[in-house]
């Protein structure tokens, strides 16, 4: 029997289909949005409510060994935030890095129905897929870290561009990833090879490889373009958190040469000033460049005050932060693929840099001319928990609240920004773009982020309230794949989301090239490395569009 649902009288915000607050009926059959339904369909009267597609987090860290290490590192955080079971949902622990079940449910209670895990070394993909499958309700996918891969560097050094492209496709297929992620490109070679070394200039050679980070990034962007990956390379630039890193960020964006690229958590890469001195805001330069270049999409990586956890594949960065706050931390090496650093962190209102970062994030949002390309994220849990999204929405939508908030902060930092002169207020339509339609477009998810016929029936319904934080904190209904998961603010049922992945085509011969390298340098056998389809569980392949 087919399940049917109709949402009537709701104010619909569906920017992808140019629907801006019109009262419109939404019909759902078998998990998809359709033109019309029969009279026996379940009715939801959304009078006085706001209807939006399910929200999409384009950049977060929610599964895998690094997330687990962070959980283990902070037992005190979990003890204070128990997530009890309900009649239909399972129990877990919360805190800044919640357990898998709690992650899925908590995303859902804020109207999120899709989230993308942003950094997975290929060798840990099995664990990630298992944990993502255990993350309830939401759909999810992950980006595979290839930007510091020793074998790919070797191919680039030898100038074998075609094999390089084939190898990327092999890797994406082998681990069931969504797209490729580059983190502090080139740094791992230096970091692992010499004491506390890092890349400081993206036009510098990566030690003995005789290639530069810019060359590596260009090659990835070109290869992803040719393979037609649904989402372009997701880039975490070099020199994160160092004063004056805007020049690195601009160099990186220029390397795209007009091709699509996604710049992750740009707030962390918009520091002006001089190296080793207090940073100043460079948000203006960065956002101007993004505004002028339509090939670039970005997420902000807003910092929110309170607890956070630095969780990154950028090992030298973790070391830098560790020296700021001498506390427990983790630094790990991931074979020939990546590095890793984790440490608990807190952003404090009195601290110059923290306030500056908070203000820079808001500057980026408020000076953005195209909300489709400057998307919402806190880089959970790096800039703060995803649970801060409703508060961030309020900061964007309510300039009086923002003004009030910034009066309590470090004024020296606020005066280094133009935030107090920015009166812009986001509209509900723009919020729908930066949290829904925009991420879906950037990710190449044709069936998500909108409410047109044929889209996945991932829908959120909010009671309209003046206090936007309260409004976005607790949707009245959350519908996932046509099933009402949250009804009148309470979980009505549990639900299992699917894994989103892409399968770029490639020439099978490349495996023969990679294998000898594996047998020489890896701790696992090549035949045990690729992740079998059994690990995919519930999944959906997002089509690629290769350029011939």
């Amino acid at each position: 029997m087919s399940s049917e649902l109709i949402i009537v009288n709701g104010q619909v915000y569906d920017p992808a289909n140019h629907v801006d607050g019109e009262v419109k009926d939404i019909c759902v059959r078998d998990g998809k949005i359709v033109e019309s339904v029969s009279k026996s369909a379940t009715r939801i009267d959304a009078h006085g409510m706001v209807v939006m597609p399910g929200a999409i987090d384009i950049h977060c860290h929610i599964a895998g060994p690094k997330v687990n290490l962070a959980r283990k590192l902070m037992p005190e955080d979990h003890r204070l935030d128990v997530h009890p079971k309900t009649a239909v949902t399972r129990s877990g622990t919360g805190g800044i890095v919640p357990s898998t079940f709690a992650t899925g449910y908590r995303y859902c209670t804020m109207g999120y129905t899709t989230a993308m895990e942003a950094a997975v070394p290929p060798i840990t993909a099995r664990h990630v897929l298992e944990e993502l499958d255990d993350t309830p309700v939401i759909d999810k996918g992950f980006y595979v870290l290839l930007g510091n891969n020793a074998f790919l560097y070797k191919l680039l050094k030898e100038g074998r561009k075609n094999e390089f492209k084939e190898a990327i496709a092999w890797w994406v297929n082998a681990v069931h990833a969504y797209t490729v992620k580059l983190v502090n490109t080139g740094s791992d070679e230096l970091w692992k090879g010499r004491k506390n070394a890092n890349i400081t200039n993206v036009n510098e050679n990566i030690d003995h490889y005789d290639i530069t980070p810019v060359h590596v990034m260009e090659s990835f962007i070109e290869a992803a373009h040719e393979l037609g990956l649904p989402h372009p390379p997701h880039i975490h630039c070099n020199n994160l958190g160092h004063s004056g890193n805007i020049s690195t960020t601009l160099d990186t964006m220029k390397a795209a040469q007009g091709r699509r690229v996604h710049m992750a958590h740009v707030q962390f890469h918009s520091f002006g000033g001089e190296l080793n001195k207090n940073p100043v805001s460079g948000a203006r330069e960065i956002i101007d460049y993004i505004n002028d270049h339509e090939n670039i999409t970005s997420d902000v990586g807003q910092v929110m005050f309170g607890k956070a956890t630095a969780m990154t594949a950028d090992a030298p960065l973790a070391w830098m932060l560790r020296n700021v706050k001498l506390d427990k931390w983790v630094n790990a090496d991931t074979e020939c693929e990546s590095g890793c650093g984790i440490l608990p962190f807190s952003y404090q209102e009195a601290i110059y840099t923290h306030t500056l970062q908070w203000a820079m994030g808001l500057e980026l949002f408020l000076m953005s001319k195209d909300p489709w390309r400057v998307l919402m994220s806190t880089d959970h849990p790096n800039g703060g928990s995803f649970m801060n999204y409703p508060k961030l929405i309020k900061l964007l939508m309510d300039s009086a609240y923002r003004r009030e908030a910034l009066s309590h902060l470090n004024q020296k930092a606020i005066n280094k920004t133009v935030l107090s002169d920015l009166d812009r207020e986001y509209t509900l339509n723009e919020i729908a773009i930066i949290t829904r339609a925009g991420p879906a477009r950037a990710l190449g998810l044709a069936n998500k982020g909108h409410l047109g016929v044929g889209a996945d029936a991932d829908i959120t319904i909010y009671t309209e309230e003046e206090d936007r934080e309260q409004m976005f904190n607790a949707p009245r209904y959350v519908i996932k794949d046509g099933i009402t998961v949250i009804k009148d603010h309470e979980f009505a049922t549990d639900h299992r989301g699917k894994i989103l992945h892409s399968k770029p085509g490639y020439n099978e011969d490349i495996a023969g090239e990679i294998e000898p390298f594996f047998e020489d340098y890896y701790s696992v056998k090549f035949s045990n490395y690729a992740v079998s389809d059994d690990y995919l569980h519930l999944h959906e392949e997002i089509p690629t569009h290769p350029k011939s």
Partner: protein
Amino acid sequence: MTTLLSLHSQPDVPLEADTISPDAITGLSELGIEHLQVLHGNIKARVGDFFKVTGKGVSDICLEGDLSKVKMIGASMSVGSITVEGNVGMHVGIGMSGGQILVKGDASDWVGPEMTGGRIIVKGNAGHMVGSAFRGQAVGITGGEIFIHGDAKNEIGNSMRRGLIVIGGDAGDFTGVNMRAGTIIVMGKMGIRTGAGMIRGTVACFEDAPMLPSFEYSCKYQPLFLRLYLIRLQKNGFENKIEDRHLNGKYRRFSGDGIELNRGEILLYLR
């Protein structure tokens, strides 16, 4: 007048009785106290399932029976007193900010975690982690006093930041590990690795103890503050343990931990 709770059925698995505290029961009737919720393993139960309650709820509570399987007694209490006639289970006085808990028997592990004030007195022995931070926490107790008249096991005062812990008997290993500040006085012997990672604070002991290599001998002297502390403790039940030689004798001072700030001190009585 006191409220008497006597254990009539021994729980099969540990019972989390965080509702047995003056703050929770004051003003309740006998029936009201019997209906307070406790956790028996993962099952919700009532105080009355395990305790017979006599008298209506006042701020002084007396507990009878072997409570070694009853945890979290006196949780978050701020006023009044609890007297336990026998042994008591883990986490006694967790998060307490005022009042007094007197245990006439032995206490299990984790006496007074997250304490900010008040006093816990254990006449018998205590388990591990007396006045310690929970695993992962940067800071342990930030105030209050814990007096153990018998022995205590490992990690006394782990990461404590303020407050006083007194052990009348012997201490296990790692006394004052990662201490931020505060005072620990041990009247018996201490195990190994005392003060490992301590930043500030004082550990004093009447016996000789093995020192970590990261602690440096500073001097021998008569610490005046210690004399004042000991005189006060003599008036608080430790008169048999503290002799005149402890008040008037000299102490060897070691500073450390050298891997941290080096501002902590370990004082060992010089025979």
